């Protein structure tokens, strides 16, 4: 099955490897997946809160 891959420059990879070790991750892959999931979730949450805000504003519940 096809799995998407992301290219990372050598310099960034080295930085990520160090950070993963310091943070106690078992691998660089695990570390990168975790921070990507976290970042995506934060963006989705922010988008949802903004859409909720617009809906509440439209209904006259907030300014």
């Amino acid at each position, binding site marked *: 099955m096809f799995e998407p891959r992301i290219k990372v420059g050598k310099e960034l990879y080295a930085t990520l490897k160090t950070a993963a070790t310091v943070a106690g991750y078992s691998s660089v892959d695990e570390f990168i997946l975790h921070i990507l999931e976290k970042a995506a979730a934060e963006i*989705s*949450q922010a*988008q*949802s*809160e903004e*859409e*909720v*805000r*617009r*809906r*509440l504003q*439209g*209904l*006259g*519940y*907030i*300014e």
Partner: protein
Amino acid sequence: MITVVSGLPRSGTSLMMQMLQAGGMSILADAGRPADEHNPKGYLEYQKVRSLKSDNSWIADAEGRVVKVVSQLLYHLPPAHEYRIIFMQRDLDEVLRSQEKMLAGLQQPSGPERDMMRQHFTRHLAALDEWLGTQAHFSRFECNFSDLITKPAAAVQEIVRFLGIPLNVQSMAEAVDPILYRQRNN
């Protein structure tokens, strides 16, 4: 102690306000939003709540009373006070249908498709639920709107137990009008 009725718009918050008023509680509300076809018995809202994010100077006026605060604004209630929150839970599809009808009546844009809006509200409620659980100045009672309509006497007993104050339970139960339960799923 401040009693707060909260939830999503169209989840039964106005009904809960009407019930608490009928039971004898002092309501913090004004005539800013009069009754209309969507809410024939009135919204019982306090217009200053709408700007709670930027101005909470009025909050002391709510001490010993009940005020309606829509879900997203709960984050902005100052922690210097203690709050009992009655949080209304209603089927999200019923809430969305009712909101869409109200938005059309207000000539406001409907926004994202219903499925997308359901996802946004689901994320919003999950995050709020998690946050409320970490806030020592809140105690919370989840009130199911459908149960409230179909079994008001039982629901009223639970509400009064949560609030811990003597209220007229008969008047509270009588404030429930099943005819106004529109947009129901079945």
